């Protein structure tokens, strides 16, 4: 097994690690950095639960190798809140019951993090389109869409 040294930033913190070249980024985050908030639901890029932000883009960490993140700046669900203050998207999911079992939630939050940055005042159809790559089996998506709308409003109100 071949290994390689990588250096990357996760949630504002620098890490240097040696990883097997075949290790996925999701496994690296969960096992090596113990950031278990990033979840795996299918391990082949379908369910979206493992979505994180890499250099400003929402990506599926199960479809990337850790070595591909060498030099990258990552944001995971653990880095979304600022101290004790929840990010407006997190707050909206909590208030609007946008989750039940919560397993898919980190993926939805990270997808929306990029989407709402690029599209601050989306229509419902645009929200549904943006979230079509994330599966949730509990909510019927209704409150997720509602939370996304509320998050857009909160973000607009706070100027973020």
């Amino acid at each position, binding site marked *: 097994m071949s290994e390689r040294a990588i250096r990357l930033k996760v949630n504002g913190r620098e890490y240097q690690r040696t990883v097997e070249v075949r290790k996925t980024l999701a496994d690296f985050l*969960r*096992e090596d950095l*113990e*950031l*278990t*908030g*990033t*979840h*795996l*639901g*299918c*391990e*082949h890029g*379908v*369910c979206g*639960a493992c979505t994180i932000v890499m250099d400003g883009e929402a990506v599926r960490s199960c479809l990337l190798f850790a070595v591909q993140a060498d030099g990258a700046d990552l944001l*995971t*669900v*653990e880095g*979304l*809140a600022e101290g004790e203050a*929840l990010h407006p998207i*997190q*707050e909206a*999911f*909590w*208030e609007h*019951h946008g*989750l*039940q*079992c*919560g*397993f*898919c*939630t*980190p993926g939805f*939050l990270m997808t929306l993090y990029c989407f709402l940055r690029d599209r601050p005042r989306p229509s419902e159809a645009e*929200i*549904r*389109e943006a*979230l*079509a*790559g*994330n*599966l*949730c*089996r*509990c*909510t*019927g*998506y*209704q*409150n*997720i*869409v509602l939370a996304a709308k509320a998050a857009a409003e909160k973000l607009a109100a706070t100027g973020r």
Partner: protein
Amino acid sequence: MGPVETPPRRAEELAVIGKRLPKVDAWGKVIGETKYADDLILPRMAHARLLRARHPHARIKAIDTSRARALPGVLAVITGADFPPVKFGILPVSQDEEALSTEKVRYVGDAVAAVAAVDEETAERATELIEVEYEPLPPIMSIEEALAEGTVRIQEYGDGPNIHKLVSLEFGDVEEGFREADLIREDLFYFEGSNHLPMEQHAAVARWDPDGKLTLWSSTQTPHYVHRTLAKVLELPMSHVRVIATPVGGGFGGKSDPFSHELVVARLAQLTGRPVKCTLTREEVFYAHRGRHPVLMWVKTGVTRDGTIQAMHFRSILDGGAYGSYGVASTFYTGALQTVTYKVPRYKFEGCRVFTNKPPCGPKRGHGTPQPRYAIEVHLDKIAEALGLDPAEMRRRQVVEPFSKTANHLTITTCGLEECIDRVVEASGWREKHRRLPPGRGVGFAASSYITGAGLAIYWNEMPHTGVIVKIDRGGGVAAFCGSIDIGQGSDSVLASVVAEVLGILPEDIRVVTADTDLTPVDLGSYSSRVTLMMGNAAKEAAEKLRGLLLDAAAKKLEVSPAGLVARGRRVYLRDDPERGMSFAEAAQLAEAAYGTLAAAGSYRPPRRGGKFKGAGVGPTPAYSYTACVAEVAVDPETGEVRPLEIWIAHDGGRALNPLLVEGQVEGSVYMGLGEALMEEQIFRKGLHKIPSMLEYKSPTTLETPEIRTILVETNDPEGPFGAKEAGQVPLLPLIPAIANAVYDAVGVRVDEIPITPEKVLKGLDQKGKGQEPRVGPERFPRVSFPEPIRVESAFGQPADLSLKRE
């Protein structure tokens, strides 16, 4: 503490119950802090993988593990021989599973060996080095094959060579009812099986301590039954086994059985002296299965001209897969609840479950009842059309009487179905739309009922089905302990809300400690929609005992009568002079000084109200929930695609303890029903699962899920805590037939087979174009040697006997 003596308080007096409050566990879930089973990392933890059979049916001749053992990094390799020769299964009558198969494999995916290694990859590679010599046996892959095959047997027990269970019951004389009918109709339906597809793949971690005690963390809906199974299979005293259910990342019934991997990690932890984790892959989740049974159904109903049902005869054949699982209960459930929605004065049920060489089926949301509900609601739609009646109105006139008994001796308490029907008919514009929309557009109606918790436990005994302990500390902190497990449905929030309401504090003031067999009283598990009602009643009892002590102690201090005090807003005070009082914490200190440590227990056992015949154990419940649904769809005649446009659903779940959470359960049920109605299917080719991946097993996304209009119809049921019934299962049931009936309204094609795929719609349209009967579905019902029915007098129309209360 019977329900009649303490009627629920008026809504306006309640501070927490009935409020739209966020889930108490949402915070950990939005920051990524909630630890699901696969998130657990223990020092020196090893990783396990299972070797699974690649034959659907084969005898195991030899297993050679030597090459796997020699691989560096491998800590232990085990086969079935490394376990005591003890079989297990969720039901006492179907103890037919082994931790690892010893003599035979019965489906592709059956586990035969397991490896613990320093990491998951090494464990996986080692499983590939295990050599298993198989003698292939003829696979049995369908209901027809199972009924026809007399020599080759999958299991060595049951009611026939490959028949697991045969049931035959008759309540009243159905032939007499058919003679009184103006119209008799017979129909055939088929409902394909489907997987629960929980987002979280099953995972378990075991730790074996040097004192011989085992701890298992697992993503399970039923820690109590996993506890029993571990003790049985590993031949340990139950007192040496601790099972902790971790927050479950979606269950829907799929994590309600004890599983191989849970037993395997326990044994491997014992052998290696290290904690061992096993997380199933998505493919393995499809093998572990226990999902919706494929069911072939025949129904015959006799009605008078106005649509009044005189008699119904229902037959079902369930394709059970290779093991028993919950199958006996599933079989009864395909017949038990037919009488609970509409008045059915005479009823006959014949059920059969066969074994096939496929992953075992079990309970999925609605357990055994969505299939017959689909059949009956489409069947009634056809009857209404034949009689020229409005299908919603015809059903409305036949809704069961509240506080009455059904033909098969089930006791109905509250029933808000009439109002549910009125509300969805009104909201959807049903009367203006049905048979009046342009071609390609249609509306469909259906209704349903479901149990609020099984009236009988899986293991029949005199003990409670659930218990809650509440403890108050000197700072006013409150902890509530219960064996229940939150699978997303919100049971932690229900526990906190009920205790908070009674003690006059807020849910956020309460620490809930759940699903730990060492720390919490038994709760039977998150299945059969039982937790809100049962745990809620137990929590209420425990909290009321403590409130009594707090009010007594505060009354002495204030020199008033405790009857004049209330606990509310984190205070205890005089109802008529709110300024006179004290903080909750001060009342707690006074009570502890007066009565000692403040802890109290409550427990709950459902009333025993079923019939006295064999098979009466499935169907009874403290209270039934009700739903009515209208679905509007667009059907593309070119592609056959069915697009749901809008869903109106009205739900009677008793009083909604938290409407936000109840609506969430309704919406989730509608979504899951849509997936089953239109696309989800667990299907096989030559013994192999055809699509065991999330990519190919299609489920609805945000784009296929329409706007869901939820209406809560609140009855106030005397059995439930503050009047609550269930919410998590009944709303799935009407959705599927409502879609089927809407497709018919849109294009005039009857798809009598679930899922309603574009292919089937096109086939029906093609038949229609050729002037043939536009129907797609099963053509025949195989001959089954059902036994002579157990004949029982119909109890239809008798008043409910509420004196048979819980103890």
